[in-house]
Each structure stands twice: as C-alpha cells, then as structure tokens.
C-alpha cells in the first residue's frame, strides 16, 4: 500500500534554496544556547551541498537528467517539465505499469487516455445516429418523431457509458525493446527540461544550477546578438522573475495559448487562476489576437492578464549590460505593469 504523504509536507519549500529554519532554540538566560546558535548560524549557509547539473540537449534545450535532481527541482517550487509526462516525472512508473512489470497506481496519463478513447467511441455512435436521422428525414418522417428517437438514442448511450469498463491490457511495441539495458533493467529516458527563463532564474537569481548566467545566456542567444535578439528573452525573464519573486509558482502557459500560468504554491494544490501574456509596453496587436487569447484563457476560468514590460533605458545600453553580464542592472532597467482583460456582457451587468 502506498504511504500517504500530505502535499504540504511533500512540497514544504517554495524554492530550491531553503531557509535555515531549524536553528537551535535561543534561550535568553542560557548563554550556552547562544553560543550553540551562533555556531550553527555561522557554520551553515543556504547553499545547496552541490549544484544541480544541467546540460544542453537537442540544441538549446536545457535539461536535468539525474532522477534525484529532477525530483528536487519539482518538489521545491515546481521547476521544469518532465519531457515524457505532463509535468511531474512519472514516465518510468507509467512504463513499468504499462508493460506489466510492476503493480502500481494507475498513473494520471493513463486515465486521461482511457477517457479520451471512451469519448471517441461515443462520438462514433453519434455519427452513426446522424446518418439514421438523415435517412428518416429523406423518408419524410415527422420532426417530432425524429426528436423522440434522438432522445431515446441519447439515453441508451448514457446507460452504456456508465457500463463501460476500463480495460488495461498489456501491450508491447518494438520501440519498447530498446528500453532495457544489458541487465534487463528499464532505462529512464525521461529528463526534466527547464524553460530558458527558469534556468536563468535558477542560476542568476538563486545559486542552484552548475552553469553561469553568462554561459547560459550566450548559449541561448549567441555571442553577438542585437537588441532585437535579446528583447523577447529579457521581457519574458523580467515578467517571470517579477511573479516568482512575489511568491507565485510560474509555469508555461502553452496549453492555454499564453506565456505563463500563475499558481499559488503549485499545481498539486489548486488550479492556476491567472494566465499571463507578456508584451512589450508599446505593443498593439490586431484585435483578433486579444479576443482569441482571452477566450482560451477565460474558457478555462482563469483571469487573462496582459503583462506589459517597459524598457526604461535606451536599447543600446541594455544590450551593453547584456554583453557585460550585468544582469541585475539590466533586469532592473525594465518596469512591469499589468492589465486585466475580460469580456464584459452588458446584460449581465445591469445592477
């Protein structure tokens, strides 16, 4: 039986750098306790025992391969995305499960897939009925009669749907044979990938990764970029840092067509409430751009935030700071402001 671990304990710290929150107690009338406290304070730092190793794979994709390090980044602030899972690295477990090598909980991805297949089946049935209805119409059957048949059909579908069983047969593919090493153990193919802005945050703002900010940014945009080359990355980073530093868990918003999603604490705790689109402050897009983005984000019950980032110095100065690696100066040269964008329906706002 799996051990129950409450989320709050699992994800105790919001950042991969932990505070020194277990210092010994200070007892006012006991000088020894002071000394012990002082010793503990001086002898320790917030730094990690060793930094997390990243490498570039497939060009500019920044990845972490060590399973413990992957888990550490996920557990301490939900950094990175496991490449073969939705977010948290679960691929190995899922694969063992799929190949019938280990009994375990049905992983999330599996359930989703099952549901999807059921929906497809439902839709197939619907399509069949459409054909029947067309036929009835051609025969001149009355519309009321057709409607009655449709109701009965829908009811029978609902009944069937509740009966549908999950079948989880073990299937094996040729691709799976390559998944095992010489000693017949499953190789972990999964790596954790960091967004460029996450990687910058974890080396520039927090000393977590074993790569310097300069090396990282050079690799991402090349040695001699123009301002136009760095603008996109700079404004995205500034926005990312802004939200992270105010306590949000910031994750990619690609599934909702925006730049970032903001979670309180993190995905296991609650849905993201805000979808963020990062823009240059002088941006003005075609209206369809705002409308479609807002519909996707709004459709998932999230507030749609336009995050404008304004460079407050000349571009050539910003570029110079980039080249000299003066990142704190560079990022401080931008200012952030937010606008909430939401559809408004007059009829629903009359009082």
């Amino acid at each position, binding site marked *: 039986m799996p051990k129950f671990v409450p989320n709050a304990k699992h994800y105790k710290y919001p950042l991969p750098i932990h505070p020194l929150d277990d210092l010994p107690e200070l007892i006012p009338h006991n000088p020894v306790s002071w000394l012990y406290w002082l010793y503990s304070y001086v002898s320790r730092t917030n730094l990690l025992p060793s930094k997390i190793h990243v490498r570039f*794979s*497939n*060009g*500019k*994709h920044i*990845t972490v391969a060590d399973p413990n390090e992957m888990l550490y980044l996920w557990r301490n602030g939900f950094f*990175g*995305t496991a*490449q*073969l*899972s939705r977010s948290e690295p679960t*691929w190995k477990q899922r*694969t063992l499960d*799929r190949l019938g090598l280990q009994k375990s909980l049905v992983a999330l*991805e599996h359930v989703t897939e099952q549901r999807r*297949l059921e929906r*497809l089946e439902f*839709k*197939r049935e*619907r*399509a069949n009925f*459409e054909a029947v209805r067309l036929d009835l119409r051609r025969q001149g059957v009355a519309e009321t009669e057709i409607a009655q048949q449709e109701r009965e059909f829908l009811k029978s579908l609902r009944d069937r749907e509740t009966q549908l069983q999950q079948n989880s047969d073990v*299937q094996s*593919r*040729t*691709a799976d044979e390559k*998944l095992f090493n010489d000693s017949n153990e499953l190789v972990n*193919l999964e790596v954790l*990938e*960091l*967004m*460029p802005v*996450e990687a910058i945050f974890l080396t520039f703002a927090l000393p977590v990764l074993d790569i310097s900010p300069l090396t990282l940014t050079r690799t*991402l*945009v090349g040695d001699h970029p123009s301002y136009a*080359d760095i603008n*996109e*990355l700079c404004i995205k980073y500034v926005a990312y840092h802004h939200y992270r530093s105010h306590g949000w868990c910031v*994750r*990619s918003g*690609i*599934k909702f067509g925006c730049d970032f999603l903001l979670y309180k604490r993190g995905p296991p705790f609650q849905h993201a409430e805000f979808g963020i689109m990062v823009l240059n402050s002088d941006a003005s897009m075609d209206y369809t751009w705002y409308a479609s983005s807002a519909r996707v984000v709004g459709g998932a019950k999230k507030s749609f935030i336009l995050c404008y980032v304004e460079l407050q110095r000349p571009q050539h100065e910003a570029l110079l700071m980039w080249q000299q690696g003066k990142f704190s100066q560079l990022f401080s040269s931008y200012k952030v402001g937010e606008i909430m964008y939401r559809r408004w329906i007059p009829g629903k706002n009359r009082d």
Partner: protein
Amino acid sequence: MDNSELVELVKTNLSHQQLWDSVRSFKLSNSDTWMVNGLPPHKLSNDDEELETEWILPVELQQYNSGNMTLEMADQFFAELKCRRIILGIVNDDGTVVYYFMYKGLHKPKKN
C-alpha cells in the same frame, strides 16, 4: 526551415510518451527541413478510414529561436509529401510538444 535540432525530441516524445510505432525521420529534398513519420496507437479521429501513417513536422514555438514557417513553405511540404494532412509538432521552450492537424485547403470540422 532548419528544424534539425527538434527531430530527436519529437521522435522520443512520439515513441515514448504518445506510444507511437515505427517512428522515423527523414529530410525533405532541396530543403533543410526534417519530417517525422510514424503510426499512432489508434485512429486519431473518427473521420479516418483506417489507421495510417502520419506525417509530423517539428516546429519551434518561441520567437527567440529561429524557424518561422510561412504558408508558402507549408504548401511546399504538402507538394512533396502528397498527403491530406500533416501534424504540426509544436515544441515549446519547456520541451512540451503539442500536436495540431494541418489540412491543405478548407476542411470540414468533425460532426461530433
């Protein structure tokens, strides 16, 4: 459109997250564009007659990387592959891949 750096990533994703079979990559003629093809684990839509080989074009989402695709390029891909649809394998900067059908011309939506 040079998408060579994305090919392995998309292939791995198809083989081991989406559980596709016979995933292969190849380069289009007179171009630096790579395509991936493979067999999905089940029919992708009810409109499909049968399980068939799908063609996937890996593309990078983010603007601060190269790889912008014009519709002229899309036409060239269709011209060479002679298929009814390609699948855009859109690679995000966090390594997530999302897949979208792209049909040449006007296509009817699914009935249900």
